[in-house]
């Protein structure tokens, strides 16, 4: 299920990125929907890649699903709000104008704190444990059951 969702996200994300690039070839100024399509493409492809890579047969994503959902929300909201909110009138957020802060701190910094941690905390259950290594080493030395 997780693998299928990840793959579907990748395909849809690729189509969204293709639509974004196609929008640039239309006459006139670049349309807003083109940039929004690229935001959707980036979010779907990034999170879809992680879901596909983390998926293991018969094991749901579990609490990892929350980390991936948070990543998707951060990408869509960070870039989306930066596109849709009006230019800042005044005031800075942690030293930057509000929309710039959403992109820099939201998209550029926030995932760096929780994604590597999510990977490490779920490593044994989702990625690799000693039993997996033994099975792989057995496959090296003979046919796989």
């Amino acid at each position, binding site marked *: 299920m997780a693998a299928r969702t990840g793959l579907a996200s990748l395909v849809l994300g690729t189509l969204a990125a*293709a639509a974004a690039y196609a929008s*640039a070839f239309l006459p006139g100024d670049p349309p807003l929907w083109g940039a929004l399509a690229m935001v959707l493409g980036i979010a779907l492809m990034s999170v879809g890649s992680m879901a*596909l890579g983390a998926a*293991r047969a018969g094991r749901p994503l579990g609490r990892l699903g929350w980390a991936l959902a948070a990543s998707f929300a951060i990408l869509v909201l960070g870039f989306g709000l930066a596109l849709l909110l009006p230019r800042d009138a005044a005031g800075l957020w942690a030293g930057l104008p509000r929309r710039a802060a959403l992109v820099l701190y939201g998209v550029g910094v926030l995932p760096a704190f929780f*994604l590597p941690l999510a990977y490490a905390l779920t490593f044994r259950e989702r*990625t690799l444990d000693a039993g997996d290594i033994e099975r792989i080493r057995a496959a090296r030395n003979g046919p*796989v059951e």
Partner: protein
Amino acid sequence: MSVLSLLQVVPLAAPASPGVVVVGIGYAVIVAAIAVWAGRRTRTARDFFVAGEGIGVWTLAIAAMAATLSGFSFIGGPGLMYSLGLGAVLIILPASLTNTMTAWMLAKRMRLLGEVRGLITVPDAIGARYRSPLAQGLAGVAILVAIVGYMATNILALGLVVDALFGTGLTWGIWIGLAAVVAYSAAGGILAGVYTDLFQGGVMAAASLLVFGFAMRTGGGLGEISRTILAADPGFLEPWGRLTPLAALSFFFVFGMGALGQPHVVHKFYMLKDPLRLKWYPAIMTAAMMVTLLLYFGVGVAVKAEVVSGGLAPLARADDATPAFLLAYTPALLGGLVFAGVAAAIMSTVNSFLNVGAAVITHDLPVALGRKLPDELAWGRISTIAISLLAGVVAQVSGTLVAFLGIFGWGLFASTLVPALAIGLNWPGATRSGAIASIATGLVTTLGFESAAYFGVFTFPAGVTVSGLSLVLSLLVFFGVSWLTRREAGEIDADVKLVMET
């Protein structure tokens, strides 16, 4: 925005002083000592190409960081920020995601393929996944083409740094810098490479952190820097800077998804001694990259603020941003450390390219042709020297063409390797035909579009990059052809299938 502007092809402002030269010499001596140490330990082709599968996770992560970041992070990047505004930062922002993405998609599977099959190259993994020497050979050709162009650009940049440090002139700078990299790459292979990368990564991170501190102090903190810039040029701190939103987001897309197809980074997963240590790889790699990229952002905004407030004269060239800041606001020794950091960034990238390229010539192309070379270690050393000479000559004689060659290097890696390697190792439905078609599409579209754009046949509209478009097209071809040939989908060897299911 062309990737052309990401490449360092103009002379640097030289901060030459005795202190800078001493730091430069000290850096070179340490690199030489590591190279001699590693050279004595390189006895087999596995030592030469995968460091004998004996490195730890800290070495893996720091070496991968050093190979990922070229001199662009220190010179071209801050310059790009100075000229384009905050939009240029979208090139580096994907670092918050890409290392964990790469770990989930590739780190475990590459390492386990090395365990089960004894693989040593990235095209090896493609060949094993699809049971296809043709796919392996085609991936090898794509990597080799990209490497020569990409290396030529980096070698030219290295020549500029050596010239800036020691006043050698560009020609001697190119060949002195190249000789240093080749000496340790040919003698110690990737074993020398990863341990020099570890040292070089440390130099890069220390230089970046210190310069970022000076940049913030110079401007009175980020808030004050922002207020200074907003008063004179509010567009600079728009989320997309002077770029269109689509152009800036396209940077994020290409440098985010494209990170899954960089062979000089992915190849390093084979080298890890204990696969269970991958647990902390994304955390270490992400932290190292974030620290090392602080200079990119800090110098970019600090120099802009100093220029608009009259503290610095407007820059003649954007690439002068870092040298101008170092000369005006930091001690000479820190300037030396930063230039050593630039040299380190370039040398670590070139060394990784040399090793990956030599592996293609020595291993992947013979395998694709149904042959195996008798002494891969000796041929690996010969190939290393041959590739470096070729790239050096290209850097020396081709003028602006060297930038053109570098343009498609990064994009070619992404469009040819992301679908077949990164997705293919995680999706059993990917087929041999889909992989071959996507690699061929990536090669043809990247080379074709870049050549057409370079020779002025046509220009893409703002926001469309050749590397982004080629990546999208190769992905669509990969999904489409795999679906059309889905009857082939079950043709995966049992041990490879086990790795994919683990």
